């Protein structure tokens, strides 16, 4: 009861202690809970715990300080030992107990809300033992700190306590030892974190930003005292305006005491914000590289059908682009991705703008156009060839057909569905044949599935023809296009098959070695191909160098065979590919190569603003599946454990910032009484109220500059030293590198913000003190 009345009588002080306690407990409880729910090391809460301990220590110490007189009285009444200690600590301990309960409630609420918002659906929060343990640890540490602070007070000389006179505190060896511990600890944890790297997560790495911030804060504090002491000796520091300020700054650390916590909070915030921005930029880039476009339609039927479908649904080339990605067949990390360079800029150019891969658009645009795939569409195929020759022998004076130099040609092509198909000319049964001139006959066959574009792969000959009377094909129209005229067909010579081919006067002459085929028999051999061994243009990553086959750099082509490439350029990272692989011109690679090796990831990429009609047309081809989007991939990436970890760090930084604010307010509130006396004293000897206010504003400014400068330096250093060492992303060995450069756009505002907060708190707290502290208030009964 007595304690409660005492708490109420000092409600200002009690309130800040209560709020700080609540905040630390809620933060530790919440972050441990969040860590548990998303599989992060709960050690991530250690940073908050550390700052909480420092803040609670200073507040508990000043709470005990306010009751020095009481403690002295209790001592005078003969209380000793534990009873005396209890009378000293009862009040802050009760406050801490209530704060712990409130903190658990707040932490519970926050975690509940956060779990519903950030964590995967279905994850609900019910506290487990780590959370209770965290709350317990904060309470225990808080009590320990209070007891230690009170211990000191109970052993001060009794008279000082009763008189209420403050003796200047000499830097106590214990405190000095702790400060040295913080400094050494900061150095050790940074070293340790950098040694361990982001793949090895331990509490040391997670604690290091807070520890580094505290250490920098301490250094800033000492530096400021040294500077103030030096300034007090200079003329400027001796001017009446600065007289009190410089002396206060170097003699008493009361207003500057908030520096370590404030700077630590700023550093924590800088690291967390940089980590978040760096990791999220990485996630965006990675998702971009992985999905390839705002929308990605999977295609099962191979690269060609993706290619033709994209061109069919979007002839203008503004919205759709085909791509086919292949993993490294050797199980390594080398990926080959075939893309359509003519559509790159239009479809994904702006999507990659600003990413590491953003610079490749113009390189792709520079790919040679010449060897591009020409697809054919149509519904019939026709051939004009020499008539079958019939060789006869007279038998009993009657010519008897002995054999016939019969020849047929098969055209192999990949159809709309990505299936390798063939059509025979003349068709079986000799139907659809009509005379086409002297000794010539035209045969026609129907084509199926060549509406969007087929690609021709091979001409095959079956039959027999003597060299002296070879078969001659004068025209081969595939879907309306004369293949013999196009020039792209290369006559193939395969002596082992016994089939020979020769191009003459726009016609193909074919004969076979053996001419003993009986009717229905003969040789079979390739007579023409659409050559695939032409080197195709490619962009590769800088590492590794490509294998050379027969003196030519080559990769595995779309159908899995050796594909020579001519490397147009090298870049550090490529879309789809990451840091090791090649981007190859699909238009060239598909020439004569319609089939797609298994294991390919074939897609049609689309812009986000692709019109519904185009999408409809694409879907109507039947080759594409349900699309995935970049946004969905990004969302998924943001659900990863590491992303939750970074988010949690932000959350902790927020708590630390509020805690630092509370500490600053509490520290300022603690000083108000003393400053009133000081101002009244100064006014009684002739200083003006305005001059005193001005000196307090100067002090606020000096503190703000110190906080901002130290936060800036420490924040930059912490980001430099630690961003690479914290587990921010799940970058595979060959994934994108995380950009860990400190971002000044984040660090500067945070540092300035910390400075402004300190300045504003100090300025507001002491704003009216000069004016309201009349010398007449210097009476014993008013103090």
């Amino acid at each position, binding site marked *: 009861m007595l304690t409660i009345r005492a708490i109420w009588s000092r409600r200002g002080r009690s309130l800040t202690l209560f709020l700080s306690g609540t905040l630390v407990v809620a933060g530790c409880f919440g972050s441990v809970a969040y860590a548990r729910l998303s599989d992060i090391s709960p050690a991530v809460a250690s940073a908050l715990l550390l700052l909480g301990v420092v803040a609670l220590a200073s507040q508990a110490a000043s709470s005990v300080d306010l009751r020095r007189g009481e403690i002295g009285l209790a001592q005078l009444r003969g209380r000793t030992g534990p009873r005396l200690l209890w009378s000293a600590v009862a009040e802050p301990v009760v406050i801490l107990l209530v704060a712990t309960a409130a903190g658990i409630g707040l932490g519970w609420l926050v975690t509940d809300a956060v779990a519903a918002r950030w964590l995967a659906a279905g994850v609900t929060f019910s506290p487990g033992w780590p959370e209770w343990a965290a709350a317990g640890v904060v309470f225990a540490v808080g009590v320990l700190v209070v007891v230690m602070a009170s211990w000191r007070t109970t052993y001060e000389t009794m008279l000082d306590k009763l008189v209420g006179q403050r003796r200047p505190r000499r830097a106590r060896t214990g405190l000095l030892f702790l400060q040295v511990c913080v400094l050494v600890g900061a150095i050790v944890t940074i070293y340790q974190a950098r040694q361990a790297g982001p793949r090895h997560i331990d509490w040391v790495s997670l604690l290091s930003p807070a520890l580094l911030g505290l250490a920098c804060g301490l250094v800033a504090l000492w530096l400021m005292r040294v500077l103030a002491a030096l300034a007090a000796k200079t003329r400027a520091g001796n001017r009446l305006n600065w007289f009190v300020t410089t002396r206060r700054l170097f003699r008493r650390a009361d207003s500057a005491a908030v520096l370590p916590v404030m700077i630590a909070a700023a550093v924590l915030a800088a690291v967390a914000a940089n980590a978040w921005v760096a990791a999220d930029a990485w996630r965006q880039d990675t998702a971009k590289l992985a999905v390839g476009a705002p929308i990605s339609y999977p295609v099962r039927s191979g690269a060609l059908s993706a290619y033709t479908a994209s061109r069919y649904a979007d002839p203008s080339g503004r919205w759709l682009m085909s791509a086919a990605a292949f993993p490294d067949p050797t199980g390594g990390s080398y990926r080959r991705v075939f893309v359509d360079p003519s559509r790159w800029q239009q479809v994904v150019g702006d999507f990659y703008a600003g990413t590491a891969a953003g610079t490749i658009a113009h390189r792709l645009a520079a790919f040679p156009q010449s060897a591009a795939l020409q697809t054919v569409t149509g519904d019939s195929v026709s051939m004009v060839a020499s008539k079958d020759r019939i060789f006869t022998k007279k038998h009993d004076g009657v010519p008897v057909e002995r054999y016939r130099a019969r020849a047929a040609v098969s055209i192999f092509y990949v159809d709309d569905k990505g299936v390798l198909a063939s059509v025979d000319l003349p068709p079986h049964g000799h139907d659809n044949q009509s005379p086409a001139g002297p000794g010539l006959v035209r045969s026609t066959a129907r084509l199926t599935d060549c509406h969007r574009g087929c690609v021709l792969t091979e001409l095959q000959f079956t039959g027999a023809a003597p060299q002296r009377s070879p078969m001659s094909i004068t025209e081969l129209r595939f879907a309306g296009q004369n293949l013999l005229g196009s020039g792209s067909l290369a006559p193939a010579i395969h002596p082992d098959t016994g089939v020979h081919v020769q191009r003459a006067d726009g016609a193909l002459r074919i004969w076979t070695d053996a001419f003993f085929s009986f009717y229905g028999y003969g040789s079979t051999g390739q007579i023409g191909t659409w050559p695939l061994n032409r080197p195709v243009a490619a962009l590769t990553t800088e590492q590794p160098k490509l294998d050379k086959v027969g003196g030519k750099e080559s990769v595995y082509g779309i159908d899995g065979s050796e594909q020579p490439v001519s490397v147009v350029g090298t870049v550090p990272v490529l879309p789809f590919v990451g840091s090791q692989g090649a981007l190859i011109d699909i238009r060239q690679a598909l020439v004569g190569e319609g089939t797609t090796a298994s294991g390919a990831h074939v897609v049609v990429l689309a812009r986000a603003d692709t019109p519904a009609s185009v999408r409809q047309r694409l879907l109507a081809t039947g080759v594409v599946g349900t699309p995935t989007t970049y946004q969905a991939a990004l969302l998924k990436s943001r659900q990863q454990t590491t992303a939750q970890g970074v988010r949690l760090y932000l959350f902790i930084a927020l708590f630390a910032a509020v805690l630092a604010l509370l500490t600053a307010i509490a520290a300022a509130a603690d000083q108000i009484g003393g400053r009133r006396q000081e101002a009244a004293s100064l*006014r*009684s000897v002739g200083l003006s109220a305005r001059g005193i206010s001005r000196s307090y504003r100067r002090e606020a400014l000096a503190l703000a500059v110190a906080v901002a400068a130290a936060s800036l330096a420490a924040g930059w250093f912490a980001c430099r030293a630690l961003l690479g060492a914290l587990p921010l992303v799940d970058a595979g060995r060959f994934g994108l590198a995380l950009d860990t450069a400190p971002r000044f756009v984040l660090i500067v505002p945070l540092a300035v913000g910390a400075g402004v907060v300190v300045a504003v708190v100090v300025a507001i707290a002491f704003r009216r003190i000069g004016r309201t502290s009349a*010398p*007449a208030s210097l009476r014993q009964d008013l103090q």
Partner: protein
Amino acid sequence: MTAPEPAVDVGSRRSALLELTDVEYVIGGLQVLHPMTLRFRAGEVTALSGPSGSGKTTLLSIAGGLLRATSGSATYDGTLTWQGDGDPRPEFAFVLQVYGLVPILSARENVSIALRARGVSPSEADERADAELDRFHIGDLGDRQVEELSGGQMQRVACARAFAVRAAVLLADEPTSELDEGNREHVMAQLHAEAARGAVVVVATHDPAVVDAADRHCLLDEGRLVDHVEPVVVGRHRPV
């Protein structure tokens, strides 16, 4: 309400007068001072005695312009001592009962800042501060922060600070309460020296020895001026 008491003229030697006319002070319904009229003249040490709570500090505060009388007025040299904000006029100096030292400053700085506030240059202020500390036998404590000093030492720093500015009006509120006999006599001698310089000196005290050493004496009780004693010898100075 009691009727205004007759004016008491304390001393009549110099021209500059610290005059309290029908001064009354009421705070929170408590009549701290009943209306009274008093005059303090330059060149004399006036003791203001009375039991604790009789209103000595309040009277000094009104005289020095730190408090505004509920009614009546306090003037020095014809102008009001109350300036509207509770700040004293620069020609006034105080030895406050609670010393009113600035804890974060050293003893020397506490003295010199009073001089600096009056436009004295830093180096001269430090020199004079050291001289004043010496005057009260605490010259060796100049570098010490006042927080570290004993009560008597602080009281002497407060004296040094008030004496340093060579004020026209020196108002000392129980300046010897924490001092031993030797130091008390020394302080009284210094007060007389200030008066001899031409200052109006008023000492609030409940110490009969101090009253004895003063030129004049006013006795307060429960906010009333119950008695006043004229000096036997006009302009008497106690030996320093």
